[in-house]
């Protein structure tokens, strides 16, 4: 069942087309991540769904209702902002209960729901503090508690982890996933971080220049990207691309196409049939190493199997791992 749907959404600011016919559906209880580079329109999409911006064209449905022309409060969505948007002069308790108080819920009920929500995200011991007295991670939890307290039809999260340091971001990512499983709510999560998208999302929608490029499960998008943009955007290090003349050393690739190969599929296994190339640079990234090769490729290998810089290596790429894209349109092509 569709809990949140956007059809034909268009929005422009001056001469900039922020949304260019976006169609998107989040299923009931799903965590749908909208990912894309800066300026691709993902935050605009979220703000339009929340009602903070109005669409030029298109329809927004939340819990089966057409809310396109409804004011923000009538849409019954909660939003977690990138900056958390906690009221600095309110205590944590007052921040969490804010929406209930504005909606004139009885004070005893506000207190109990605030306590339950704070318990859920683990900030019960901070209720009397003000935001200035909290760490970034604690503020993030309070912002989540404020969103949870009202039991909305959908949650909108606008890059909520981007202000946290790397360690805290990883921790909060796991907690968010756990929290989503526990509450089972429909969440639309916007981020520019493809790692966040891959690890958090039940499904991912990749947005570029106001258009949805592909929607699907993280694994599908990674393994079968619809076009070159999606292939390039998802994955770190990014996918290698080779023109037919350079790819010829490994595979036969038709003219007018581009070969794409993930770094983990570039084998440096010393096969005598492979092409020989020189190791230009080796970057160590924990358990993996990124090997930059003279052939214009990056390979990802286990750190303890990494070659040393300057070494000659045999390089092999199998057709089953490679992707083929149309050179002009970037669309995925089948192997022939």
């Amino acid at each position: 069942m569709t809990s949140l749907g956007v059809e034909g959404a268009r929005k422009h600011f001056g001469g900039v087309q922020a949304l260019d016919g976006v169609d998107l559906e989040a299923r009931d209880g799903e965590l749908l991540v909208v990912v894309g580079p800066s300026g691709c329109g993902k935050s605009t999409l979220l703000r339009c769904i929340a009602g903070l911006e109005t669409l030029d064209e298109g329809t927004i449905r939340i819990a089966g209702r057409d809310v396109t022309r409804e004011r923000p409060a009538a849409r019954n969505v909660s939003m977690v902002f990138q900056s958390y948007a906690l009221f600095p002069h309110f205590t944590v308790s007052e921040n969490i209960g804010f929406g209930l108080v504005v909606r004139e819920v009885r004070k005893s009920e506000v207190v109990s729901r605030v306590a339950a929500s704070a318990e859920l995200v683990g900030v019960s011991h901070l209720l009397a503090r003000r935001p200035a007295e909290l760490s970034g991670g604690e503020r993030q939890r309070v912002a989540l508690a404020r969103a949870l307290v009202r039991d909305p039809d959908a949650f909108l999260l606008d890059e909520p982890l981007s202000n946290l340091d790397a360690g805290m971001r990883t921790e909060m990512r796991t907690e968010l996933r756990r929290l989503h499983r526990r509450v089972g709510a429909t969440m639309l999560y916007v981020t520019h971080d493809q790692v966040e998208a891959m690890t958090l999302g039940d499904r991912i929608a990749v947005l570029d220049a106001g258009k949805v490029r592909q929607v699907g499960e993280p694994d599908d998008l990674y393994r079968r990207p619809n076009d070159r943009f999606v292939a390039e955007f998802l994955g770190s290090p990014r996918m290698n691309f080779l023109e037919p003349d350079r790819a010829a050393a490994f595979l036969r690739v038709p003219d007018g196409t581009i070969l794409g190969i993930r770094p983990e599929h570039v084998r440096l296994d010393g096969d005598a049939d492979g092409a020989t190339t020189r190791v230009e640079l080796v970057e160590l990234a924990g358990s993996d190493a990124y090997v930059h090769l003279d052939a214009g490729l990056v390979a990802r290998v286990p750190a303890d199997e990494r070659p040393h810089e300057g070494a000659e290596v045999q390089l092999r790429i199998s057709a089953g791992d490679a992707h083929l894209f149309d050179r002009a349109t970037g669309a995925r092509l089948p192997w022939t």
Partner: protein
Amino acid sequence: MRAGERSWGGWRQPAAIAVAVAFLLPFWYLASGSLREPGAPPPRAPELLPRPLSVESYDRAFELVDLGRYTLNSLAVAALTVPPAVLFASWAGFAIFLLTGRARAVLIGLSFAALMVPATALLVPRFAIFRALGLTDTWAPLVAPALLGLSPFYVLLFYWSFRRLPRELFEAARLEGMAPLAAWRRLAMPLVRPVTVAVGLLAFIASWGNFLDPLIYLFDSDLYTLPLGLRSLAVLDRTNYPILLAAAVVSTAPVVLVFAVAQRFFLHEDRGAGWLGR
């Protein structure tokens, strides 16, 4: 700490003392001059305290003109002016803040344009309007500008202060269904308290020192404000400096007192309380 900062830090205290002395000297001259005997000429050289010390000039000032009534009148006019000036200036500033795009740019431009118009250029048309409304010889013309925020500068001051607050705070409030007026009262105003106090103080000083408007609109001496009283005193006893200075002290003291009370709000930024009332 960089070298430049260190040297500035070293100079800061003497510089602050020099500025304070430059500002306090006229006040000292005012206070010590008011303690000379009535009729005494101004001192030929600066003096710390006059000899003999006398408060008789204060008695004479209150005998010559009804300074007590004029002080109360000025306080009443200020009390009627300052709250609406702060209220309307902050409303206007908040409204400009909430607007977007061209509407906001136009209103900011209009505020600047209004700021450029000299108040004296409007004296004649304003007088004509208030006379047509039958409001001359009342305090209404003195208080009426407060209904427009008293000065476009105060409106802009509030707008600039609100603009410094994260817009997401107000978007979060909008999502929860909070009305703009409630957002102004519950969110915006508690977060710009020092600016509110500053605007209140500026409005008080503007009202307290307003000489031109009372001179034009007030004919009944029972309605006179303190600046008009001082002017009357200068006309009655033009060369009696101790009496004039005593009246000037009476007129300055409330402003100093109000500033002394208000300055703690500049120095201690109390952010106020939320719905739990703490």
